[in-house]
């Protein structure tokens, strides 16, 4: 399954990666090389095989419903690019 330029642009948008116009042909080629490697997998017969999401197949532990966190806003926002009045700032959100 070779990717077209338009698909590469679509994926880049999904992943919110700004593509440089000049880089698109090379990115497309690289991705197609990688997909060529991955596509070798399609030949494997996996009929009746259950997917394995986690190697150990353990089950989820549950946490007690207790508040254990204190307010640390100042420390956490000290590393933020833009804050005001305790809020993280982003360009206007349009609903």
């Amino acid at each position, binding site marked *: 399954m070779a990717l077209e330029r338009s698909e590469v642009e679509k994926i880049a948008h999904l992943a919110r990666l700004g593509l440089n116009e000049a880089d698109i042909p090379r*990115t497309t080629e*690289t991705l197609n*090389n990688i997909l*060529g490697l991955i596509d*070798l997998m399609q030949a*494997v017969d996996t009929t009746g095989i259950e997917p394995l*999401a986690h190697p150990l197949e*353990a089950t989820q532990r549950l946490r007690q419903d207790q508040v254990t966190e204190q307010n640390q806003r100042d420390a956490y926002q000290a590393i933020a690019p*833009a804050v005001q009045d305790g809020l993280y700032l982003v360009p206007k*959100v349009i609903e």
Partner: protein
Amino acid sequence: MHQLTLAEIAQGLAAKKFSSVELTQSLLARIAQLDPQLNSFITVTQDSALQQAKAADERRAAGETGALLGAPLAHKDLFCTQGIRTSCGSKMLDNFTAPYDATVVAKLAAAGAVSLGKTNMDEFAMGSANESSHYGAVKNPWNLEHVPGGSSGGSAAAVAARLLPAATGTDTGGSIRQPAALTNLTGLKPTYGRVSRWGMIAYASSLDQGGPLARTAEDCALLLQGMAGFDAKDSTSVDEPVPDYSATLGDSIKGLRIGLPKEYFSAGLDPRIAELIHASVKELEKLGAVVKEISLPNMQHAIPAYYVIAPAEASSNLSRFDGVRFGYRCEDPKDLTDLYKRSRAEGFGAEVQNRIMVGAYALSAGYYDAYYLQAQKIRRLIKNDFMAAFQDVDLILGPTTPNPAWKIGAKNNDPVAAYLEDVYTITANLAGLPGISMPAGFVDGLPVGVQLLAPYFQEGRLLNVAHQYQLTTDWHTRTPTGF
């Protein structure tokens, strides 16, 4: 002093031959002097290291003991360290001062270990050459024109060059074992869930495991002892008691059944490496091990499956780097989409972007079954192969890598060629098994590693066998010229 192993340091500190402060000062001086050649550190934490060393000396003076009390080490720069830059080798996190400590960091600090700094790595642990770091390539101390392997390449180069006795690393597809092999170290990837992932910046959550890199199996045992254990903050952490890894190092390996997968010795393997692997098998046989051929029929499918699963998880794990709450943010975003797209395109390097794109594609509508689900089914086939093999053998042995360290830049424009170098290591990650790489000789002056894989939670067995092997061989004691 820089030639001392962790075990020797523990003895020296206990016998008061030197203090942790003296040792730390000496190694910091060595780093300042030699690391410019290697680029193995992203951040050297001189002040906090000396404080930790002083505190360790005081604890010892107050009667405390412990193998890691006052022992110097460094962390791969994806373990979060409170108040210290944690960059993941990325421009994205160049300005990221972690607001908390990873569990591994906290545990080792509590044991009294002294952290000298944060080591260089492939960006977001994606790579096997340590060339994708925002902070530049790391050089292999055995030949400065060659790569040290990756992604824990900074940890490996620093330990191999005797800047440190040991360092932490992480292994998602071989990122501890492969650089260990390429720099003549011993490196262990524990069973998935053995070491907490809390604070270890994720590449691929179901594959990532932290572990030790050191010059000897004995030191790996000491460091793993400090890293391993259940952590309630990590849902995938396993609540199993941690055995005393040092206690079983001396056990006899007589009767140990070692399997050699016939698939390992195919055309892709450098024949000189094959020869060294067979020589290491002979050594183990001399120690009483019994060797038989086995088969891992689905091994060849591991690379494609891995390069779907790891990028898929990564594409999602790396979505949080969006320029909003931490990390890199582009200049003057004109709107929200622009903020995302430029922050991420400018903050991530090419290989990270490749993998994010591959992962997003593999999970996207219409391709999920063909890629992601198929990869997970192959993952089960691979695990089943191992489970079947471990019915007949105790350990599986083979090369860690198909080739010795390549020249810096040689595979830069060909990610697929680099991916193929992972062929021997990634199956352990897919199956969640523990594996160790230990020195097995040299090809053209470059180190070669032999890998052992064991059933779940048998890290002790791996360390035991590696230690016995290292008692009768001296590959691991070789020091690169100039270091």
